[in-house]
Structure formats: C-alpha cells, structure tokens
C-alpha cells in the first residue's frame, strides 16, 4: 500500500484528536485539569449527528453540516460549564467532576438517540463533510487552523499570557489585576467548544452515524497527547500526529501480520514511558488541578 495515499486518511483520524488536545492544553494551561474531554467529544458528536439528521430529513442542504457543527460546539461548551462551575466556583475535585461528565455524556447521548430515533444510535446522516481533490476533509484544515490560532493566542497576545499565568501562579496573576476566575472559565469553555467541534468532525468524516462506540477513548488519547506534548502547541501537534497515525494504522493495516491492537496500544504505552523518562522535570502547568482561593486580607 502506498504510504502517500494513506496520508488523507491518517489526517482524517488525526484532526479530531488534535482539536480536542488543543482544547485540553488551553484548559490545563489556565489551571484546570479536564478529564471530561472524552464525554464532551461524545456530546459534540451526538448533537452534531442529531442536528444534521433532523435538518436534513426536513430537506436542508449542504450548509446544514456546518450548522450542525456549530450546534455541537455550543452544546459541548454548555456542558463543559458544569465542569467550570464545579472546578472553579465550588472548588471541587476536578477529576471527580470530569468523571461525572464522562458518565453523564454517554447517558445523555444515547438517551437523545432513543428519544429522537427510537434506537441507541442516530440514523445515517445523509450529507456529511466532503473531501477535496487531494482527499483531505475540511476537518484537517480546521484542525491546523485551530492549532495555529492557539499558538498565536497563547504566546502572542496579552490574553494568552494572562491565561498561562493563571495556570502557573494564579496568586501572582491575581495580584496584578488579572481576573483568575474569568480566565479559567474561558479556558474550560474553550476546551468544551473545541471538544464539541472535534466530535462533530469525527462523526461527519469517519462514519455515517453516531454510535456509542464512536469516540472510543479518543478523548483520553487527546489527554495523553497534551501530557506527551508537554503542554505546548508544537508538542501537542507532534503527539496528536503520532497517536492519530497509530489509530489510523490500526484500521489501515488490519489483517496484516501486526495485530491492530498493537497500534491501539501504542499511544498509551508511549505516553506512560515518556512520563517515566521525563519525570522529575516539570513541564506541567504548576497550578493545574488546584482550585484558586483568593486569600482574604
């Protein structure tokens, strides 16, 4: 099989992972750990599929795909606010509220399908994203755009500097007048919106309908990509490329001498090994996962 002919397929798998990972990176750089990426992707994928089906059955044309994507971003963004309220205002354990959203998302998604379609998946979406002449889907270009934007915003704008300050030393950020609460809310909300976008891209390119197995751990792969990419855009890009390629190859090389499970295993094993090798050197944002309490003076 020609390696070049595989590139569009690989990028199709990479795109959702990259978009979600960028969201996770922004969220963690603002100081909130988001293990709910998996659930937010599920919600995004399901709402995109439901919206597209409903609109297209009513006779909507090509543009409905993009409205569905937009709806997915909004719905996931709203769900992510649950995590924001818990983590930022209620000073909750962020892993617990993230896990709760993951459990809730599965239930909500299938529940919506049951109500709308009477089965535990959506109908097939008639019109999905179309690939261009080179074989790339729009999701690929979107993911690159998201990556570049995240780099620009994080490193070239005052807002990005404030966001990174909140993840490193919120008390210092607070002392110079940065609204830590607001910045962290934006961080979590952006990760929700991007996870929704990514879920929508996944359901619009890789399959014909939403099923509960669609996301299948890719939110967690994105989480691994954030850690393996050491919380920087370029690192996250490299990690997503590697992990996405492994995922794609598990399908493309199915039936050859190497079992597909080996490729499925790679992202997780590599991340674990990398964490061991790089342990002791702290790349993670220093205050990620710690609620910030304004000291009363």
């Amino acid at each position, binding site marked *: 099989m020609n390696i070049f002919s595989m590139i569009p397929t690989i990028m199709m798998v990479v795109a959702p992972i990259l978009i979600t990972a960028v969201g996770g990176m922004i969220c963690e750089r603002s100081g909130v750990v988001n293990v709910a990426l998996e659930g937010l992707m599920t919600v995004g994928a399901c709402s995109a599929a439901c919206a597209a089906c409903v609109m297209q059955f009513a006779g909507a044309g090509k543009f409905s795909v993009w409205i569905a994507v937009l709806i997915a971003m909004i719905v996931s963004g709203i769900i992510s606010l649950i995590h924001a309220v818990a983590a930022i205002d209620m000073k*909750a354990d962020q892993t617990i509220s993230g*896990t*709760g959203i993951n459990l809730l998302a599965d239930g909500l998604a299938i529940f919506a399908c049951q109500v709308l379609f009477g089965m535990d998946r959506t109908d097939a979406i008639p019109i999905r994203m179309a690939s261009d002449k080179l074989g790339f889907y729009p999701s690929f270009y979107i993911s690159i755009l998201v990556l570049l934007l995240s780099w620009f915003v994080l490193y070239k704008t005052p807002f990005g500097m404030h966001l990174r300050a909140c993840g490193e030393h919120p008390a210092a950020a607070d002392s110079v007048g940065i609204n830590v609460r607001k910045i962290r809310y934006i961080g979590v909300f952006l990760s929700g919106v991007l996870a929704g976008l990514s879920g929508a891209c996944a359901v619009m390119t890789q399959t014909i309908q939403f099923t509960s197995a669609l996301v299948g751990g890719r939110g967690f792969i994105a989480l691994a990509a954030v850690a393996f990419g050491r919380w920087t855009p370029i690192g996250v890009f490299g990690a997503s490329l590697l992990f996405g390629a492994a995922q794609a190859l598990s399908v493309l090389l199915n039936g050859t001498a190497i079992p597909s499970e080996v490729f499925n295993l790679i992202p997780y094993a590599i991340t*674990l090994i990398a*964490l061991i090798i790089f342990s002791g050197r702290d790349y993670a944002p220093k205050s990620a996962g710690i609620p910030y309490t304004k000291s009363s003076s």
Partner: protein
Amino acid sequence: MEKTIKKKKAFIDWFLDSNGATSVAVVILGLFAGTIIVLAVGKNPAGLYKALWQSFVGYFNKGMGKWSISPLGDTLTFTIPYVLCGLSMGFANRVGLFNIGAEGQYTVGMLAAHAFAVLVKPFPGMWFFCLVVAVLAGAIWGGVVGILKAKFKISEVVATIMLNYIALYTYRLVALYLLPSGATNRTYRTADFPSQALLQKVFIPESALNIGFFFMLLAVAVYWFIMEKTALGFSFRATGFNKNAAKCSGINDTQAISLSMAIAGAFAGLAGACVLLGSLRFGRIMQGQDNYGFMGIAVALVGNSRAIGMLLSGILFGALKSAYSLMQFMNIPREVVNIIEGLIVIFIALRSGLELVKQYRAKQLVKQEASK
C-alpha cells in the same frame, strides 16, 4: 420562637457535617433530576420507580405464571463488581490518591483468571486459584501505579488512564492470539471454561448470582479491618490526611502509597474474576470497557470510602443497573439510568461547595457574636 430557629440551624449544621446525610441527599437529587428528564420527554416517571422497586422484589412473570425474583438476583450480581471496584477506589482515596484505574485493574484480573482457566488442566477447586491469580494480577497492575507515583512523582490519574487502555488492548491481544480459540466464534469468544473454573450459583438459580457475592462481603470486611483496626491502615489514613506530617512521624509514605495502590488493585482484580467466571461464564474477548471500574468511583464517593457506606451504595448502583434492563418494558428510554448515575457523580463533586456554605455560616456567626 427563638428555640425553633435554633433547632433549624442545628439541623443545617448537622447536615453539613454529616457525609452520610449529604450522600443520601445527592442520591435523592439524582433521582429527582432523572424524574424531571423523563417528564421532559413526555413519559411517565412512575415506570422508573417501578423498575427500581422490581429490581429489589422481583415481578410477576406472566409467561411462567409465578413471581420471579430474578431481578433481585441480578441486582446482587451487579453489586459484586460495583462494591469491589468501589473498595478499590475507596482504599486509594483514603490514602489521598485518586484511583481512576479500577477499570484496568479489573481487566487484568479478568485476563489472569481467563488465562488460568483455559490454560491450566482442570482440577477440582480450580475456581479458587482463578480468583487468586486475578487478585495478584490486579495487585500488580495497581502497585505499578503506586510505585510510579511514589518514586517518579507521576500523577496517578494520568498513569491509571493510560493503564486502563493498555489493559484493554492487552486483553484483546492475549485472548485473540495466545489463548486457545473456541470452536464457535473466533472474534467474540475463546475456548470455553472447564466447569471446575466457574463460580457456583447460589440462592436464585435463574439469575447469575454466585459465590462471588460471599467473597465480596469478605472483601468489605477485610477493607474495614485493614483500614480501621491495623497499624498499616493507620499509616494509610495518616498519609491521606497529611503526607508530610505522616512522614515526619516516621511513616514510610512511599511504602504506604505503593502498598495501598496494590491492595486497591487486588479488590478490582477480584471483581474481574467474579464477573467473568460468575456472570459471563464464557471465554469472552473484550470489545470495550465494562465501566464497572468507573462506576466504582461513584460507589466509593457516595459511600464516602467507608466499608458499610460502599456496600450500601454498591447495592444502590446494582439496583440501578438491574432497573436499566427492566425499563425496556416500562416504555421509558432506559439510558435515563446512566444519566442519573452521571448526575450523582457530578453532584458529589459539587458537594465541596457545601464547604463554602460552612465557611460563610462560620463568618456570619462571628459577625453576630461581635455585634452583640
């Protein structure tokens, strides 16, 4: 008049201080939210409660013409892995760790029991050794996380998430390529288990309730004993309260963290063996995660990581899962059960907000005293 106000305040304070009371409130809130969701889609929420009720007392089976208590059997069967995975999460939680990896420890436990059952020549009492290897496998899988945490300072949350998926795909690799394949279906099933490896059914033969239930009860007792009655348990709890203080008073925190994760993994490993040899009873090839490990997090949180609390919350979640299958007949989308479970966990996370209420009330009290 003044007296009643005082009484009211005392209730709020009692409520805020009692973990048990807030847990009950969280569950009620979860069920309430579920009711609203069922109403919102225009169905009758009574079916939800009927299904929950039936999952404890059974229902009248018209086809057989008699009362069937098999739903109770299902409830108690589901309780086995829920409680065991809850113990896994809870044990680590008491040492100040967040074990999101019960799922992976459960999976390797299941894999070890599976491999032992199909590879070793059958002998009487084989099932017991299957359970033992499952416990050992789970302990190793959990212990690795403990060592990574204690020696390399790697976040146990990230490490366990990675190990969950490594466990899942390792299971598939081993079951598909290393274990003898079954005669019927090579993609979903491996060779069948010898009858000596299966856990004997008890009490309600039409359900899958098996002797794993007694091992679960034993595990609850062991959990309580280690945690509350031994010096080891004290060192665990001390590390959980304040790692540095524990270290200063001579407690080896590295050992406490590694050992507690290993014990946590052992509980989850046992859960895997009980599900495979007691409920499923065939050589399966895992297609995806069973979610018992993740639900164990909910069980432990609702049960406040206390032995009896987790037993009770495990039964509750077992009943919810049993109700899930009963609700098909009630004309309600059964996924509302999963929504309720998710909401319960989210409400538990929000419980930390009560701490803020407490602080606010303390402040108010000081102000009141000052103005007198």
